[in-house]
């Protein structure tokens, strides 16, 4: 099988979905399909941006053999602190830097705790999940931070060339960067090596702790950025924002071929994983499927997509040579 076909394969589930939804709209609802309209595609881009951005950072952390359950809480904490800084009068752009800085600081802390305490990252970040969420709630006293400047909606609402939503550009820009890092830099190469065998990586002279901290900090920074977009979308700093996102983010990575035990995963795969979940949710809404049935469908698609992917991967390995 030629190489480009192989690269193309992970898209199959996604493309199948994108074909099925308009068909459903036409035959089921007897409507002109709205799914493939520019407006709806832009909506999907906006709706999936937050998860996709976090999932790119999570790809790094998971490829390196780690995991971070606290990302959802980071979205909330960064959202509250960032929103407060804006209501306190900081200009929107500087505010966005605050979001990212808060996120990166949380990530840095996670990374340092993981390497220093020598306990599994699942535990460290499970604890951090409670700590950051509690902090966000404590700072805001549980109330949403309101009264943001009108420019705060910019990140989420702004469209470029009158059509493409700004979050789409942010996603694309970061996807290119993270893809480049993972495939063509030391930072990325060490990610795979550490995830595959951390002892071997250490013996090969890689300063594993330093790099681990960097990966967590990057994920934290991206989660902070996601918090900025989320805040911009809801025009409030919600202390509960991002609740449960950790599972969606991890699912995006894993649907995209990333492994929970490290050493495997790609940016392209992760983006497809995130899009599959986003398209399913959007398509379910358009097809007016009951939210209960939607839950069932999304669950089934996650399992089927990964099964299909694994099956293809195994078949291809047999036929290669």
């Amino acid at each position: 099988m030629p190489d480009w076909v192989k690269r193309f394969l992970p898209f199959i589930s996604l493309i199948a979905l994108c074909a099925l939804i308009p068909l459903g709209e036409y035959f089921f609802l007897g409507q002109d399909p709205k799914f493939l309209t520019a407006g709806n595609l832009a909506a999907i881009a906006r709706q999936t941006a937050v998860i996709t951005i976090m999932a790119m950072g999570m790809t790094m952390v998971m490829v390196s053999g780690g995991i971070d359950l606290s990302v959802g809480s980071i979205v909330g904490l960064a959202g509250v602190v960032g929103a407060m800084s804006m209501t306190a009068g900081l200009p929107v752009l500087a505010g966005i830097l605050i979001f990212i800085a808060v996120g990166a600081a949380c990530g840095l802390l996670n990374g340092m705790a993981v390497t220093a305490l020598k306990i599994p990252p699942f535990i460290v970040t499970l604890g951090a999940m409670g700590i950051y969420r509690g902090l966000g709630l404590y700072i805001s006293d549980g109330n949403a931070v309101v009264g943001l400047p009108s420019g705060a909606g910019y990140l989420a609402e702004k469209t470029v060339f009158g059509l493409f939503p700004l979050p789409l550009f942010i996603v694309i820009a970061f996807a290119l960067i993270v893809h480049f890092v993972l495939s063509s830099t030391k930072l990325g190469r060490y990610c795979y090596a550490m995830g595959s065998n951390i002892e071997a990586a250490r013996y090969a002279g890689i300063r594993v702790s330093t790099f681990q901290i960097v990966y967590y900090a990057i994920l934290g920074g991206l989660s902070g950025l996601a918090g900025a977009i989320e805040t911009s979308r809801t025009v409030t700093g919600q202390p509960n924002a991002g609740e449960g996102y950790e599972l969606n983010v991890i699912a995006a990575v894993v649907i995209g071929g990333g492994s929970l035990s490290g050493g495997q995963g790609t940016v392209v795969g992760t983006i497809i994983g995130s899009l599959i979940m986003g398209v399913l949710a959007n398509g379910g809404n358009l097809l007016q499927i009951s939210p209960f049935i939607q839950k069932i469908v999304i669950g089934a698609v996650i399992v089927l997509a990964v099964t299909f992917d694994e099956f293809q991967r195994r078949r291809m390995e047999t036929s290669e040579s």
Partner: protein
Amino acid sequence: MTERVAALEMRGIDKSFAGNKVLDGVDITAHTGEVLALVGENGAGKSTLMKILSGVHYPDAGEIFIGGEKVRFSNPADALSAGVAMIYQELSLSPHLTVAENIFLGREPVRLSALGVIDDRELNRLAEELLKEYGFNINPRTRLVRLSAADRQLVEITRAIVEARKVIVMDEPTSSLTSGEVEELFRLIRDLKARGLAVIYISHRLEELDEIADRLSILRDGRAVYSGVWGELSTDQMIRHMAGRELKEIFPPRKAVIGEVRLRVDNLSLPPKFEHISFDVRAGEVVGIAGLAGAGRTELVEAIYGAHAAHSGEIQIDNQKVTQSSANQSVRRGVGLLTEDRKRTGLCLNLPMSTNITLANVGALIKGGRLQGKTEIEVTRNYIGKLNIKPPSPHKMVARLSGGNQQKSLLARWLFAGSKIFLLDEPTRGVDVAARSEIYREVNELAETGAAIVMVSSDLPELLGMADRILVMRRGHMVAEFDARKTSQEEILKYAALEEN
């Protein structure tokens, strides 16, 4: 020899992995009460053939007969219940279970059999008896993680012997053992023969086979190229069958000029692993370190490399004192450690060969801020050619390489890292004769370019053939030093095992 039903016959076995034909119409026969030696180069397909016999893999074609009856094994449980047991090349034990639990895993003695309640007292008693009977000094209640590689191998041997009723396969059972333990194993094998079992024995240590083999089968590139009675072929003829070419000499000559001291170790201690170790290694010199299992050689080279901190003492590299060593700094200073346990501390098993080879020197592949994939593949192909790594595909996951080829990939890593001081810990463990000779040639070439080489090995002929000087360690102490040309295996062993005499 009279005609009789063979204990085991495998006929016309084919097997492909991912479209690569690994076995191609292989026939082998083993008889009761005899040892069949199975030899071949790394990657010839020996382990794969045996895993088909033990039910781990299913053959694409071919038939298996046990005692004349045709059998089909779809999993290891089937093979075990047919009386076929195997000692696997990669140790296959459960680290969190105890020695006794591992030995009887899957066949625990039970009380209340409906509930499957394990009789642990009986289990430990049986294990203790067995270990004592076999002459292995291991506590059955110890968890496996606490055992040395050698002791684990003994547990694996015990386990297989208990299970075997008709056929027992031993895939390189002695790779971590020292001569005393090997003798013990041979005694057990003779017992097994007397009990009427057929033994299939795989090893790269041809000299070992002389003692026990009755018959010989040779595999080359997945085909059985020779079958006959042991002794019909000379060693040279055997090697020619295995490699398909002539091998001039196993230990190639070296013309290195011995120069300045490059590595000096002074009074290094890490009690209780080793104490007061001092020696130096010059440019162009190969210094061998001999000792029994657990003598502390691995700990010593790991401490020199900086994988663990030494407790006290001093290390000098090119006459500069090294403080606060770490693996990272050692690599920068041009020190490379070929680790003893390639699975645990050496390879990233699910990554491609190319990534593994370039891992310690990724920086050299970066141009203009970008890692050059093409260069990486070229570099890898270069080492594939140089070390004759098979199969020659840079993208292949190293987990899919045979043991010997994995070892060569690891050596290639340190060659590419441009190391000047090599710490080689058991560099030819599980490596076939021809490949060993290639590694030796490479080591000699390195010495000729001025590298300093420390070679830890349990294979005494190897040390005698390769080293300039041989240091002997016993229980963490350096007890003797010999000029390699003026000593013998007996003399080295005498010092290595002194207290036991």
